[in-house]
């Protein structure tokens, strides 16, 4: 990718996230947030990549992202999610969960809400490793094995599942509005149903016997039973939540921890992963001739089910390319998106044609022409 430029920012980046764009427009994202780690003073920062529309005229020239504003963050930023257009939720190594508000008129940041030490041990705070939100609900997980539920509009904590996990929970995502998925340090994928009052998972899926820690999880944007995870061994796992307790397919991806995996939100044939080994991969399921329906459907993002058997309103029966995907059969193609790099790529986010990632080499990379 020639159109990727490093911007050195004097802080190791732990998280990068695009500010969401409204669904109605075909607008490309132009603002992203980053969080830093391992610094004496950590920060969250907002960056602008300028008018993306005009950049294409510059013949591949990409302007540097410009810093809009930044705010001190207590402890390492371990996770970061946009709650809405101008609010972000961060989780910290100090166990705190904070909502920051980005004032776009004045380009300032303020703390709008903070829950200190919600993740904790009997005598100490525990790092809060992950957050997922669906405004106004916020769910966090931590090294203390807890799952905590908040609402952005309420001061207190809504629900705590103590001992949800005997080991560290590394990441969390929504499966459906009332269900979440967590991954932990002994290779398990757990499904939690918030409609039930029980403090145990409704389903546990795991890699057979190896106990390889899982670090990230993402759900297919359209087919909610398809879930991708990445683990310590750098393998990409695709799971079908409906079937069995073992992963559907395992694909060799990275030579070290996979820190994040993301389906493209609107072109889920494309998937992106980044790793401690310093690489960022773009995965594409090249649908074969035996499944042209999916090819068309997926490409145009108009997932019209052609199967007569399909339940009304759903597209569950449509065979996903990912579940057929098998690297050995060459149906999945991968491309390296960064020039050779040695230090970890900790985070990535992709929206529209734009991709942003941050590294331990204290650099941010933005690509505005992701071929999706």
């Amino acid at each position, binding site marked *: 990718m020639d159109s990727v430029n490093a911007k050195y920012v004097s802080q190791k980046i732990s998280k990068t996230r695009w500010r969401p764009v409204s669904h109605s427009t075909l607008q490309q994202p132009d603002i992203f947030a980053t969080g830093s780690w391992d610094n*004496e*003073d950590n920060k969250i920062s907002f960056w602008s990549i300028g008018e993306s529309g005009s950049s294409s005229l510059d013949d591949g020239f990409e302007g540097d992202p410009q810093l809009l504003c930044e705010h001190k963050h207590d402890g390492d930023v371990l996770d970061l999610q946009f709650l809405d257009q101008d609010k972000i939720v961060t989780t910290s190594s100090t166990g705190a969960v904070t909502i920051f508000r980005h004032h776009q008129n004045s380009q300032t940041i303020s703390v709008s809400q903070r829950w200190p030490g919600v993740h904790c041990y*009997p*005598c*100490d705070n525990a790092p809060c490793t992950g957050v997922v939100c669906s405004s106004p609900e916020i769910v966090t997980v931590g090294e203390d094995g807890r799952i905590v539920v908040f609402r952005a509009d309420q001061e207190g904590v809504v629900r705590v599942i103590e001992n949800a996990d005997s080991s560290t929970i590394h990441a969390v995502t929504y499966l459906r509005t009332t269900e979440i998925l967590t991954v932990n340090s002994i290779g398990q994928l757990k499904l939690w149903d918030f409609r039930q009052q029980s403090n145990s998972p409704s389903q546990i899926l795991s890699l057979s016997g190896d106990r390889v820690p899982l670090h990230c999880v993402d759900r297919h944007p359209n087919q909610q039973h398809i879930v991708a995870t990445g683990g310590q061994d750098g393998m990409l796992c695709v799971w079908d939540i409906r079937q069995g307790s073992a992963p559907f397919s395992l694909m060799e991806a990275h030579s070290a921890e996979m820190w994040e995996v993301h389906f493209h939100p609107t072109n889920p044939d494309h998937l992106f992963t980044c790793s401690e080994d310093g690489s960022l991969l773009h995965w594409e399921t090249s649908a074969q001739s035996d499944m042209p329906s999916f090819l068309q459907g997926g490409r145009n993002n108009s997932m019209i089910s052609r199967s007569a058997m399909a339940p009304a309103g759903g597209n569950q029966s449509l065979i996903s390319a990912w579940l057929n995907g098998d690297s050995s059969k060459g149906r999945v193609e991968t491309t390296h998106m960064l020039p050779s790099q040695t230090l970890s790529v900790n985070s990535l986010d992709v929206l529209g044609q734009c991709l942003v990632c941050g590294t331990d080499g204290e650099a941010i990379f933005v690509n505005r022409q992701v071929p999706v």
Partner: protein
Amino acid sequence: MVSVINTVDTSHEDMIHDAQMDYYGTRLATCSSDRTVKMFDVRNGGQILVADLRGHEGPVWQVAWAHPMFGNILASCSYDRKVIIWKEENGSWDKMHEYCGHESSVNSVCWGPYDFGLILACGSSDGAISILTFTGDQQWDVKKISNAHTIGCNAVSWAPAVVPGSLIDQPSGQKPNYVKRFVSGGCDNLVKLWKEEDGQWKEDQKLEAHSDWVRDVGWAPSIGLPTSTIASCSQDGRVFIWSCDDPAGNTWTAKLLHKFNDVVWHVSWSITGNILAVSGGDNKVTLWKESMDGQWACISDVSKGQGAVSTITDTQQSEQ
């Protein structure tokens, strides 16, 4: 550039005798003639008092942090003849063990390499050295070397855990056959090396070069070579570097680092053993480095007193 980046006010009410950073450089332990041991969180340039440990009945000479794999453990030794081992449990620091086996002031404490478990050597003015080993279940096994140094032992320092005479990797899974060794210095002008054989401590070597009391000894970290290196300093103003590249550990040669004009009190190696810091009666800390051709040179000099003078001059100037 060498510069002062942070100053911690310990609020000790009397002379500070020792200060030690923990394994990660995030916590500072200090001890003083005011009989207390204090602990500060110094992360990010801060200084938060986390513990004020009272238990000694005399000036506390030295503190030593155990390896973090054993939890948060600190040893202190005092003029009151006691050695106290402190442990953090449920967020607060308490006595884990109190050792009262010496008949005079305990001058030095030093934890052994973690490969040997929790093991502490203590040197006392009664001339003896005690070796305390944690055996689990709140039990400490004591081995005592009586009359290790006539008149008194001033310093002890452990050898790094290396397999004697072999650089070849041990077969995986098999516990390497480490030999426990440490060095001590005392009022008999001697530097002595001790070795454990069949569970008993034996004098291994007696190194003679100093002409007055040996004040401090420091065994350098192993840098993968078969050479062992020890620094010793004495009231005679001399600092010696002892080295031995004989796998059996029998032949030690001394090289004079420097002859100072005053007593040399303290020597200490940096983590990688590439710099030796020396402090003496001349109110200075000097940093020494060995060159590639084996010569020792002073690379930096941390001195006291001048700062105060220049501050005064500055004020006078600004008043004019």
